[in-house]
């Protein structure tokens, strides 16, 4: 069968946002986007989520900040970043010109700071949505963050959603007993979508020195190692929520991404893979396209949530 170049419709509609394809580059693994321009065409992405932003610039954690583990990576960057003002002044003008969805990952030391970040960004143009990072394990003691409890999730999401002029994607933590419960709290509070998972609270020790391998002692585990747990969580959440789910955790290939869609994710984010291959996210888009072609899938959205269990 002769296939014409563009037989597959890759677009996905999140309700509040239409993406040209389901692949977003994940926050913290894609810098502010521009770092990747030498390696890929940013406009070939469904979109990208910039590094988490606090209101002001942030120092981050003392190094070492990274340690590799079998098929995984623990990071304890601690959200070093330039803050919203520098972002709006220096980065956003360049991002605004791109024909792709730019999503900002919003952080805060407390609820007021989240609100302040959103308030400031609401006055800027060129942002498609906010990803509310209530789940970074690297900033407080032993991974404490709002996403660990339905109550704090609900309160924060409710407040930010009410204040924001843009759609809110709530990014959930996997370090919980019931991810469904937290996702439901975010949905009740009015989130427009949920994104999961952030990293797993982890640690590594140097046997010779008996010291933690990370300056921050604890860090967050990402990469292929976590994929089976992340996929399980996406499957559990997607079947119970009305709002769309953005899935991530260890996606390295188009097949991985498609599995998350089958499990129920409307879109995916690609994180650690961009370190291994700076052009991974775009490669994944084309692998998905080729798979759909080969399997006679006319529109990728058809496969979302199609797990057969009977």
């Amino acid at each position, binding site marked *: 069968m002769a296939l014409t170049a563009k037989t597959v419709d890759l677009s996905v509609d999140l309700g509040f946002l239409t993406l040209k394809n389901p692949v977003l580059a994940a926050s913290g693994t894609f*810098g502010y986007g521009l770092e990747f321009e030498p390696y890929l065409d940013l406009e070939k992405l469904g979109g990208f989520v910039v590094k988490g932003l606090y209101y002001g610039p942030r120092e981050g954690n003392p190094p070492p900040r990274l340690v590799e583990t079998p098929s995984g990576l623990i990071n304890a*960057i601690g959200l070093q970043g330039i803050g919203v003002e520098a972002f709006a002044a220096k980065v956003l003008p360049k991002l605004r010109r791109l024909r792709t969805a730019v999503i900002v990952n919003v952080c805060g030391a407390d609820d007021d700071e989240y609100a302040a970040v959103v308030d400031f960004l609401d006055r800027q143009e060129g942002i498609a949505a906010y990803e509310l990072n209530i789940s970074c394990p690297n900033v407080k003691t032993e991974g404490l963050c709002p996403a660990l409890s339905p109550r704090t999730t609900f309160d924060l999401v409710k407040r930010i959603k009410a204040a924001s002029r843009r759609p809110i994607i709530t990014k959930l933590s996997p370090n919980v007993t019931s991810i469904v419960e937290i996702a439901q709290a975010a949905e009740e509070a009015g989130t427009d979508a949920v994104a999961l998972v952030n990293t797993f609270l982890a640690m590594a020790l140097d046997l010779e020195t008996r010291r933690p391998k990370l300056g921050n002692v604890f860090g967050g585990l990402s990469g292929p190692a976590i994929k089976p747990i992340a996929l399980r969580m996406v499957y559990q959440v997607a079947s119970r929520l009305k709002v769309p789910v953005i899935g991530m955790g260890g996606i390295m290939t188009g097949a991985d991404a498609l599995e998350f869609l089958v499990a129920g994710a409307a879109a995916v984010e690609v994180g650690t893979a*961009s370190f291994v291959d700076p052009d991974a996210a775009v490669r994944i888009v084309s692998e998905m396209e080729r798979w759909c072609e080969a399997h006679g899938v006319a529109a990728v959205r058809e496969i979302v949530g199609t797990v057969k269990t009977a």
Partner: protein
Amino acid sequence: MTIERNARLRAVRSWGDYFHFSVEAPAVGRGARPGQFVMVKVDDCTSPLLRRPLGIHDADAGGIELFFKVAGAGTGILSRKKPGDRLDIIGPLGKGFTVGDGLKGKKAYLVGGGRGIAPLFFLGRALAAAGARPAVFYGGRTAADIPLCDKFEQAGFELHCSTDDGSFGFSGFVTALVENEIIRAKPAIVYACGPDPMMKVLASITAKHAVPAEFSLESIMGCGIGACWGCVHRIKDGTGDGWVKICEEGPVFPGERILWL
């Protein structure tokens, strides 16, 4: 900054744990400057997951050379590659050493400890081409740790070797040897690459003798392209100091800007 997925390994030489690779990678080689590095994928397996940073040992329009020591799993896998195998490399990355015009006719000291010698061959060649007079100081724990002595000599460099155990050349730390020479003949600049403790000592020596110096720093790297904030070192800038990304703003920094922890 190219991704070269199919770089052919042309030749391999080895001395114990040390390996020299000649790699066909024109796009990387053409753009390379001394002190820059590449990120090498060692395997298709997800463990190790990340690429490994390696300094550019030499470069020309046909490709690059690498020189590395087996330090763990990643370099171990790399060391088992054979001529004809394909490497997946990204580079050239980072900002290199400063090879200023002002060095013409002047002495420059290049100090390499162990695997830290890697980027100094390319730097030495560039300095010589710029009319400077490079002298190389090459230190290791024992004679087995300084396998490139012949190569530097054959290339016509002034070479001073040292071993901690005295098995070859000057007996003692390479930093002591360098300080002796600085006292004898003060160079216009000192460049160094090696283990942190060596560079820290050298930083105080060059400061004491008021010799400008540039140091190539190491860190575990997530991405190598400035996207992960994983590779930071404490660096002074105009107003204060902060965690600066080695891969993007370095790996080479002027001695006076580096805060040794």
